[in-house]
């Protein structure tokens, strides 16, 4: 009896030690970092976006005039690239989903003892540099590369036409480069499915397709949502694939922001475009998450 009392007394003091301030102390350093170097810069960006160049000033000098029309000017000047970014990113996301879903499914349900090894192999290609991989694609799909040579011999491609410097190459590159962001969340949600629920479905006379449509897919939906978001977001803001694999007609909004910043030194337009990109993505994400009905993303 005394022993039990001692334990309960002890555990109550242990609970008592747990000060309510502990979580805040743990949060302060990391959140301050994010406040200083993520939130505060966004305000700086907002302030930059409404500045204008004073009459006769040097390049790169801007003063605050709260000119909201900067946003309209910026949008009108580059709406084509804006739209293109969203479309390319959407296509790349859908392609990545089509490639990743069966892959994640096979690893989760059909791989047996090789599961962990296969999972490592999914991530492994991404330890070589992102840029080296993109350049490898550029050379594989390039005019002297194996793919074009074969296609030209088979007369699928004419002797003058190629694959790189095209929208096709840009979307291919984006699909490849963001693939693990799709595969890993899909795998995580598929792996969590209790195989007994699938057995139950087949016990209730559901065939393979019906089981997938009514049980597996709905249960994997959080992974689909997380994966599509993690692919779409970086794809929409990317400009590496468009630079290395595209042509002037495949420029994306990232290219415009980059060149406004560094080549034209037009900070206000670059800032306004960045904000619009962020807003566009957040609106799409919110609408999508609401439709898919999953709140817990992180």
């Amino acid at each position, binding site marked *: 009896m005394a022993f039990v009392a001692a334990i309960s007394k002890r*555990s109550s003091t242990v609970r008592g030690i747990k000060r309510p301030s502990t979580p805040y102390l743990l949060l302060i350093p*990391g959140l301050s970092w994010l406040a200083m170097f993520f939130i505060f810069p966004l305000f700086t960006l907002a302030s930059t976006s409404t500045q204008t160049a004073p009459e006769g000033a040097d390049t790169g000098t801007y003063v605050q005039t709260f000119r909201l029309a900067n946003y309209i000017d910026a949008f009108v000047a580059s709406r084509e690239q804006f739209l293109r970014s969203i479309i390319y990113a959407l296509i790349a996301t859908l392609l990545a989903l089509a490639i990743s879903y069966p892959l994640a499914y096979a690893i989760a349900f059909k791989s047996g003892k090789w599961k962990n090894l296969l999972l490592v192999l999914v991530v492994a290609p991404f*330890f070589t540099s992102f840029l080296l*991989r993109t350049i490898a694609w550029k050379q594989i799909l390039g005019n*002297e590369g194996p793919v074009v040579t074969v296609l030209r011999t088979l007369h699928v491609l004419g002797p003058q036409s190629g694959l790189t410097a095209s929208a096709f190459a840009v979307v291919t590159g984006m699909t*490849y480069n963001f693939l693990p962001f799709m595969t890993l969340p899909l795998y995580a949600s598929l792996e969590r499915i209790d195989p007994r629920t699938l057995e139950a479905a087949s016990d209730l006379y559901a065939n393979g397709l019906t089981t997938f449509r009514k049980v597996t897919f709905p249960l994997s939906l959080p992974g689909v949502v997380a994966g599509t978001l993690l692919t779409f*977001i970086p794809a929409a803001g990317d400009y590496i694939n468009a630079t290395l694999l595209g042509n002037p007609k495949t420029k994306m909004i990232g290219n415009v922001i980059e060149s406004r910043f560094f080549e034209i030194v037009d900070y206000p337009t670059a800032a306004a475009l960045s904000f619009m990109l962020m807003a566009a993505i957040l609106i799409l994400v919110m609408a999508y998450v609401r439709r898919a009905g999953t709140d817990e993303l*992180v």
Partner: protein
Amino acid sequence: MKRWLSKNLIKIYAFLAFVYLFIPIAYTMAFSFNDAGKSNLTWRGFTFKNWQNPCGAPEVCTALGNSLKIGFIATLIATALGTMIAFALGRHRFRGRSTVNLLIFLPMATPEIVLGASLLAMFLNLGINPGFWPTVIAHVMFCISFVVVTVKARIASLDPKLEEAAMDLYATEVETFRRVTLPLVMPGIFGAALLAFSLSFDDFIITNFNSGTLTTFPKFVYISSARGIPAQANVIGSSMFLIALAIVLVGQFVSSRKNRV
């Protein structure tokens, strides 16, 4: 035949997906053995020269050194800060939780170009020149969220009974944390650090905005892509791949041995 095909369709599909994943890696590796001279565009014969002298191309190793330094410092800071946040979220109830969750989610939902541009705009406004430390600051910022998510998942998978058992055996809260909780969470922290390092090492967009004249490895590859990348860059890319693969495989082996005991 038809039955076999339909039964194994998904495995064939997965195999093809793996082939697709490894095509550029195989290419990069093969061309690290190319007797390339100045431009590594076409195959000119097999050689070990590039592997024997990876620093042979000017600037490759300077760039690599910068990337490693930035990666190590950023990983250390981001892992420490992120792990603390993960413990706060995973082990404590407090007011403002959902705001914290949102603040962790937002950097991941923001395109890199916006993160990079906004930080550079701030540095320019404050009169700070881009360079080594601004790059480290930027890398820590975008790595924290990934560390939090990874470590939090590990904490959530722990059985709370283990900690209760430790407390029942008269361990103080500090002892329980140090001898039970922390060792159990360690694989998650290690995985998060590995993820942070690879994100930092591979980052180009944010680095390009905040590094000024400093060259990192991805920046070096980008700049030299116009006039041909030296084969030594392929050597470094291939080595990073092999090293990372080895670390992950050893980690898997160790953890599977531990589970068996």
